[in-house]
C-alpha cells in the first residue's frame, strides 16, 4: 500500500507540489497524469526520499519512506523518468550488481531480459534508447517489489515491448503490488490503470477510478483524449 498525505515540496524557484494526497491499495495500479512540470516526478522523488519535502506523510506498507528508507526501499521498485545507467557496464553486470545490492539472485532479471528480447552483453552505451529503458525497468523490478513507482515507464519502448511491460505490471498487480505510474497521455493509463490522479501546476485536480472518468466522457459524448484535455483546461 502506498500512502502519500499532504505532501508539499517546493523548489527554490517556488515550483513544486502542494498538499498532494494519494492512496494506492494492494494490487491497485494508479496512473498519475499531467503535462511536463505538473509535479509527477517531484511527487515520486519526494516519496523516494530524493527530495526533502517541507511537509507530508509518505508510507509504503506503513513504513515511512523518509524515516526508514532502508526498509522502505527494500520493498519499492523505482524507475526514473529519464533513467541514466553507468555507460561502461553491460546489462548483465548491472543486473548482478543491482541484485547483489538487494541480496537477490539475478534469475528473475534474466527471465525478464528474455521476455523483453534484451541482449545483456553489450555495454549500456551500445544499447538503443528502448533497450536502455528495458534494462532500467528490469533493474527496478528484479527484487519483486511490493510497491512500484514508475515515472513514464514506456518512454522509448516500441509497441510490442510496451505490451510486454504492461503484462509484467499486470503480474505485479495480481500479486498484490501497489503501483504508481506516471504518464503524459491518458491512452497509456487506459491500458493498465484501475484509477487515475491528475496533477496541474503542482496540485491534484482529479483522483477517481478510471472507469468514472470514462463514463463521464461517454455521457458527454466525447472521445477520451478530448474529454481529458477539456477537463484539464477547465480546471484552474
Amino acid at each position, binding site marked *: 500500500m502506498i500512502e502519500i498525505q499532504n505532501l508539499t515540496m517546493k523548489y527554490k524557484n517556488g515550483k513544486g507540489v502542494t498538499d498532494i494526497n494519494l492512496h494506492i491499495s494492494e494490487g491497485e495500479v494508479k496512473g498519475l497524469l499531467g503535462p511536463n512540470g505538473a509535479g509527477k516526478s517531484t511527487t515520486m*522523488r519526494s516519496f*523516494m*526520499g*530524493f*527530495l*526533502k519535502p517541507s511537509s507530508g506523510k509518505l508510507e509504503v506498507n506503513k513504513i515511512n519512506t523518509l524515516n526508514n*528508507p*532502508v*526498509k*522502505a*526501499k*527494500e520493498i*519499492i521498485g*523505482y524507475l*526514473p523518468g*529519464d*533513467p*541514466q*545507467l*553507468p555507460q*561502461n*557496464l553491460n546489462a548483465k*553486470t548491472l543486473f548482478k*550488481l*543491482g541484485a*547483489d*545490492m*538487494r541480496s537477490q539472485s539475478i534469475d528473475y532479471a534474466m527471465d525478464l531480459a528474455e521476455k523483453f528480447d534484451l541482449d545483456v552483453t553489450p555495454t549500456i552505451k551500445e544499447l538503443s534508447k528502448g533497450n536502455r529503458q528495458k534494462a*532500467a525497468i528490469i*533493474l*527496478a523490478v528484479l527484487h519483486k517489489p511490493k510497491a512500484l513507482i514508475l515515472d513514464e515507464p514506456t518512454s522509448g519502448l516500441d509497441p510490442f515491448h510496451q505490451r510486454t511491460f504492461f503484462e509484467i505490471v499486470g503480474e505485479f498487480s495480481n500479486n498484490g503490488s501497489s503501483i504508481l505510474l506516471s504518464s503524459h497521455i491518458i491512452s497509456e493509463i487506459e491500458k493498465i490503470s484501475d484509477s487515475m490522479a491528475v496533477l496541474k501546476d503542482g496540485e491534484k485536480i482529479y483522483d477517481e477510478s478510471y472507469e468514472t472518468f470514462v463514463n463521464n466522457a461517454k455521457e458527454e459524448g466525447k472521445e477520451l483524449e478530448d474529454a481529458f484535455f477539456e477537463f484539464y483546461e477547465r480546471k484552474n
Partner: protein
Amino acid sequence: MFNYLKYILSVPRKFILTWAIAPALYFLLLPLAFANDSVESLLIDTQKEAFRGMSENETLMNFVGISDWDNVFTLEGMVTTYFLSLFGIILVAVATIVLLNKMGAKAEEDGTFEFVASLPMTRSTVYLTQSIVAVLFGLFITFTWTNIMYIPMATMELSQTLDYVPLMKSTLMAGLAGVSFGVLGFALGAYTGKSSYAWGFGAGLMAIEWISNSLSGTNDLFLWIDNNISSFGAYGDPYQEGLIGADLTLVLGKIVIFLIIGFIGFRKRSLNLR
C-alpha cells in the same frame, strides 16, 4: 555497504586503473634517468646546467616545488622533494575529485545517482562508502606510483637509489596531502550536489596553498598559511625526517573536518537531480 563499494569500483574501473598505472609509467623516467653515469650525465647534468639561472629565483623554485636546486637533481630530490611534494599531490587531488564527482555530485547532475539512491541504503551509508573510497583511492594510486617507480631501484644497478621505507613515508605524506584537497572537493560536492563546487573548492584550496607555499618567503601571511594550514607545507621532508606527528595530524584533521562538513550537507538536502 560492501556491495555499493563493489559498484563504485566497478563503474569507473578503467579510470582507476589508468590513474594508477599511467602516471607511474611516465614517472619511471625519474629512476631510469639514473640508469648509469652516462645516462645521468646526459639527462640530469645537462638539464641542471641549462636551467641553473632558475635557481636564483626562490619564488619560481618554490612554485615548481623545488626547495634545494642541487638536491633536486639527485634521485632522492627528484622523487621525494619534487615529484611527491608537488606534482604527486596535485595529481592525487585531481584524480580524487574526478572519481568522487563521478560517484557523487556529477552523478546527481547526470542522473546516474538516481539508481543508487533508489537502493536500500541510508544516505549515511552512501556517504561513508564514498568517503572511504575518497581516502583509499588517493593513497592507493600514490603507493602504486612509487612502488612501480621503485621496481628499477630494486632490480637494476642504478647510479643512485632510494631506501624503501623512507620512500613509503614520503608517499604516505604526499598521498594524504593530495587526499586532503580531493576530499574537500568531494565534501563540497556532496554538500551542494554541484560538481562545480567540488572543483571550485578542491582545486581552489589547492591553488591557494600552492601559491602560499611558493610565496612563503616573501610575505608573513603566506608563510603562516604554509606553516599552519597548508598540506604542501605539511609534506616537509619525510624521506629525511620521517613522519612528523604535527604534520600528520594537520592533514588528517583537515580530511576529517572536510568529510564531516560534507556529511552534514549531504544528509539534509534534496538531491540535485535533473
